[in-house]
């Protein structure tokens, strides 16, 4: 017998999209071919209602990725065990293939900013975050993916590059990496490094998923902002291609959270990602 766990513990290295409420009905009616669906875990922390009504059905046809924004892995607070317990309950209910959160902090003293705030890149911070990832993994009983975050400012105390920091965290925590290529590009422009240097340093064996999204530009402070409200930009597609050539194909998410477009726009973006994945596959064959 095929169990849900058996079906969806793994994801094909092809494109998926974020499942968003405006697309629920159309997704159910059309069930387009996608390697996986990603949800924001916290949007399903409620006990019932429409979100679960739709997810229960779509879950029959797609492997799931639970992508969290609330674990606050870099916070100075103790890890929020109630939040973690809800995540574990959600994972128990839906048997996702992937569970992720971000290399950032979102709360302090129990006050939540609901924004992915940056961390200074120091050895001490890497150890701090890694300890909390280990605690989360121990509670969940499985490995977590952590996503490299976008950032708009730099800290005086940072004494290593972002990619050194990311490498140190994932090695120390023995976790997986959700490589957000848009975030690498945004940070490269904002902080003036070469995105290829970053991507070349990433431990490919740990990359379990890739994120692609669009950014905006804040002209006042000359800064790229990771808004998830646009198509993937050309230089990010180029970096994606470069990365897939180097590390091989990975499950790839088209992430779109602001000004959510018609479903077909997301499917077109997913098709572009698939074309790059297939092209690299053909080259490798």
């Amino acid at each position: 017998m095929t169990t849900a766990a058996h079906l969806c513990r793994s994801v094909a290295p092809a494109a998926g999209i974020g499942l968003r409420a405006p697309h629920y009905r159309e997704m159910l009616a059309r069930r387009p071919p996608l390697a996986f669906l990603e949800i924001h875990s916290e949007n399903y922390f409620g006990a019932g209602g429409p979100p679960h009504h739709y997810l229960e059905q779509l879950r029959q046809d797609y492997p799931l990725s639970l992508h969290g924004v609330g674990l606050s892995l870099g916070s100075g607070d103790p890890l929020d065990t109630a939040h973690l317990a809800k995540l574990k309950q959600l994972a128990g209910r839906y048997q996702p293939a992937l569970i992720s959160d971000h290399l950032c902090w979102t709360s302090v003293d129990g006050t939540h900013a609901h924004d992915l705030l940056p961390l200074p890149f120091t050895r001490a911070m890497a150890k701090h975050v890694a300890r909390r990832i280990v605690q989360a993994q121990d509670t969940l009983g499985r490995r977590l993916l952590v996503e490299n975050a976008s950032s708009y400012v730099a800290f005086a105390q940072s004494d290593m590059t972002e990619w050194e920091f990311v490498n140190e965290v994932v090695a120390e925590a023995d976790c997986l990496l959700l490589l957000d290529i848009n975030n690498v590009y945004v940070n490269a422009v904002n902080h003036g490094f070469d995105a290829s240097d970053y991507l070349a340093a990433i431990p490919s064996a740990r990359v379990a998923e890739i994120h692609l999204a669009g950014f905006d530009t804040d002209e006042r402070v000359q800064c790229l902002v990771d808004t998830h409200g646009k198509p993937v930009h050309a230089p990010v597609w180029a970096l994606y291609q470069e990365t897939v050539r180097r590390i091989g194909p990975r499950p790839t998410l088209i992430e779109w959270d602001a000004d959510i477009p018609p479903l077909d726009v997301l499917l077109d973006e997913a098709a572009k990602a698939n074309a790059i994945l297939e092209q690299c596959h053909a080259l490798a064959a």
Partner: protein
Amino acid sequence: MRWQHDWMDALRRPAGAPASGLRDARDLARFEVYRASFEANLGHALRDTYPVVNRLVGEDYFGQVARAYLRAHPSHSGDIHAFGAEFESFLAAQDSARDLPYLPDVARLEWLAHQAFHATDATQLRLAALAELPPDSYADLCLLPCVRLMRSEFPVHRIWQVNQESWGGDAVVRLEEGGVRLAVTREGLDIALLPLEAEAHELARALFECGSLDAASEDMADTDSLGRSLHALISAGLVAHTGTHLNSQ
């Protein structure tokens, strides 16, 4: 990590960067991107929970009130859906409440609808099924987990109704229509507002507070009305049997 406190304080101020930690002047200027994002994320969350309040006061004023609210009542949960619980009382203390006296009640209604939306699923008890229940299990009758109750001196259910995007009828509500006792519930996937008679509302309130009919009936002043009221609540689709809703989680 003192610097995180400095960041949170700075995010919650109208302007200015954290006191220490950032590298140079460019970083201090770019901190504004974080404040804008912080205000936008929480503002959107509030607007998603309170769409009718937003329509009644307009986007601009809502934005102002939302910024004031998130400074006065920051979020205390990693789940953004828990944000906004004190919006009703906050609105009541604003000047706007003088012009729109019903606004806090509309906010309470929307907060209850927000809770109903995410509440545990359960099976409604149908009137026809009541006859099949053994009488000794009547004590286990309870409200559906999604049901919330409120009273207002204003016709807030009508205000809510005409401000739904799907509403195509007359958009005028006369405040002289008077107050209402409401059950806020979910019918299928949609929020439904059901006006109740006083005695049915009283029973629903007792069920809500006591959990089951067994406990609620002890609270009821007038047991004669119990049967009538229970019939009304079951007919309205607001009742479940504890034996049937526990396994639907």
